[in-house]
């Protein structure tokens, strides 16, 4: 992480008037600079903005807890870190990348390797569907010849209530 280095004035040499003037100017400049950057940062990011990013990250030490709801001290520090980074103008991707670089890929809600995660279940499901339809194909062949016969049985099957009705009426007789 790049933090702006504080200007360090280690050598204080009261040499000459010009030296003092130069130093005074430099010192004044040193104070102006941070103020400038503070103005450039803008207002402190709201809790909602922090949460929006924290929601998508997971706490690196707790188990399966998203960063916006994690109650521990460490998580509080991470949320403050997000706030600071947002104030510096970092984008969502930059913050995420920083967290991944610092804490590993487990901090993301999804594995970085999208292909591996989605490919296997997709293939398995498609394979299952394919096998099923192959099975249907094998079953369906002999039936096409009997379609007329089965059309007749379709009608009474559609209204099982009438059929049951008749059955029950027969029982009562």
């Amino acid at each position, binding site marked *: 992480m790049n933090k702006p280095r504080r200007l360090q004035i280690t050598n204080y040499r009261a040499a000459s008037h010009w030296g003092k003037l130069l130093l005074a100017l430099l010192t004044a400049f040193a104070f102006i600079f941070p103020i400038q950057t503070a103005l450039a940062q803008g207002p402190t990011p709201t*809790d909602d903005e922090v949460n929006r990013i924290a929601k998508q990250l997971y706490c690196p030490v707790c*188990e399966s807890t998203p960063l916006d*709801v994690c109650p521990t001290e460490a998580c509080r520090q991470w949320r403050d870190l997000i706030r600071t980074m947002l104030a510096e103008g970092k984008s969502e991707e930059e913050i995420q990348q920083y967290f991944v670089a610092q804490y590993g890929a487990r901090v*993301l809600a999804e594995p970085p390797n999208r292909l591996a995660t989605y490919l296997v279940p997709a293939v398995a499901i498609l394979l299952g569907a394919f096998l099923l339809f192959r099975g249907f194909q094998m079953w369906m062949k002999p039936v096409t010849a009997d379609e007329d016969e*089965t059309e007749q049985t379709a009608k*009474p*099957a*559609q209204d099982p*209530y009438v059929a049951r009705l008749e059955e029950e009426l027969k029982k009562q007789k």
Partner: protein
Amino acid sequence: MIANFGFGVLLITFFVALYSVFAAIYGERRQLPSMVESARRAMLLTWPLLTLASLVLIYLLVNNHYEVQFVYEVTSRSMPMYLKITAWWGGQAGSLLFWSWLMAAFTSLVTLRKWDRDREFLPWVIVVACATMAFFIGMNVFFENPFAQLYQTFQGVSAYTLKPADGILFTPEDGRGLNPLLRHPGMIIHPPMLYLGFVAYVIPYAFAMAALITGRTDDRWIRLTRRWSLWAWLFLSFGLVLGGRWAYDVLGWGGYWGWDPVEIAAFMPWLTGTAFLHSVMIQEKRGMLKHWNMLLIILTYALVIFGTFLTRSGVLSSVHSFAQSAIGPLFFAFIGFTLITSVALIIYRWSSLKSETEMTSVLSREALFLFNNLLFMSILVVCFWGVIFPLISELFTGQKVTVGPPFYERATSPLFGGLMLLMGIAPLSAWGHSTVKTLGRALWKPAIAALLITVVLFFTYTQRVGALIGFFLVAFVILVTIYEYWRGAYARQRSQGENVLTAFWNLTGRNRRRYGGYIIHISMMLMAIGILGIEMFQMETQGTLQQGQTISLGNYELTYREVAQWDDLPSGVNYRRAVLDVHEDGEYLGQLAPRIDYYYDSQQNMTIPGQRSTMRDDLYVLLVDWEPVGASGATFKIYINPLVNWLWLGSFLFLAGVVIAAWPEKEAERVPVKARVRVPQKQTSAAD
């Protein structure tokens, strides 16, 4: 003393269960009914023994015997009586004992029925059930002894089953206390519900194994265990819903399901169990899908054991994880053994599981149930892969990853949508033959009506495509189901001359499985409304308020009034409670009081939300301890969860539906006709 007695009872029970297994096998192989009967009696003995062991444990829990390690870990003096009793399943060792106790109870119930027509099943049912029981008791006896006591030796204080040579009994002054998160009423019922479901599934599995071993692979084993499958499913479903409700009320993240690996481990058997519940209807009616039913019940049992293993062995990381222990390898051996024997048996008997009739149409009811199986299996594949992928990633690439909600939601949403579509189409499909025309004729009215409702929602509620599709499917299913109900009642009305209400009542009474099932479908759609609401339309915000300041979200304005902090030393809790006024569009609605409870013994916080619940939405406020609560203000997190109470309403209706479906029928169960004829209009049993 008493603890040692309890351990002794457990040890005896272990040997009794083992004896039962071997006696049953021996009696069956040598055709000695007396040995089988001996095995049965031994099996009946396990329940009184386990009840005794459990009572001993409860006695120790209630009487503050902190020299017993388990008592020390899960209770403390400040806990109320009812929590001390329910701490029985509050930790690893006790919950394993609870599991064994349930297993013994269920197996005893099963063996108390008449076995005249199914003599050949009995020994194998005893073998499978008692082997499972012996395994769980064995874990208690050898690895996780609930009666282990703390002894002080040269090396320090540790727990031992038997007193070590130089050990002195060590009695802590107070216990560590149950994790405060677990001290909520929902948390008390949630584990027993889940265990009831898990353990009850062992019975149909045992019968399935007996069917495979004996070769009696017709639907007899299904009929015998039909009630068990249904009740197991009920408990499992309810356990899952309770877990969700508890998470929503107490965990403080405004959600009810986090796609955590342990949640998924309990969800996976539910998936196969639901598929099984539907698929067996096809076997009973048409003698089809026999392979599927065997596979599904084996998978359900395997997933139950595997899920229990995953949550307790430390293989996966999860918020739910029990402390890691040495039971991992034993569990693994048991799973390996179970999977290998089950798969070997089903391969061995594959050809005897042939269908009795053929499937003739892609749109017939049998075919739709087959699609149903496929969809449930697909969701299972997604869940299983999501759970196992972090493990694979870490083993093969060294990189730790998290598979979180985005993956599961993206991958399962279309599959759940497909299931809902089937819920709407299948009740109107016909057995045997169905064409697009016949099905279309039945479906077009509810489909158009659902479409109209969706259009109305488009103009009044939301334009989001995903939500609209969801609402369309919900409306479609509810309309089709009500239509089916109405058709049946109308037919009764016409033929029997009953009024509408009596017609409904008698219709349900005479056909409980079908109409109970329809009620369950409707209840699931109500739950779907709740899920759609909270998942798609949740609003949240967070802010720090000074006293008197207002924060707004949606149409609500909340004004921070005051905060109070006080100790409840007898209970060992420190309360911080904030009060907010709630206004909606300027109108005063009332007050909400979120709080943070700090438990001194376990040094943990519980965030309890302030909730205002209506059918339209939930206003849910949390006192967040991002900043310390004090004069500088308090930080609140506010959620608006639209429609979420439909989820809980649906779950109540669900309970009613299952009770109706499972209620014993008035008419005696008829013996099914052996040879099935392809004549669709004759139903072979009273239960349709």
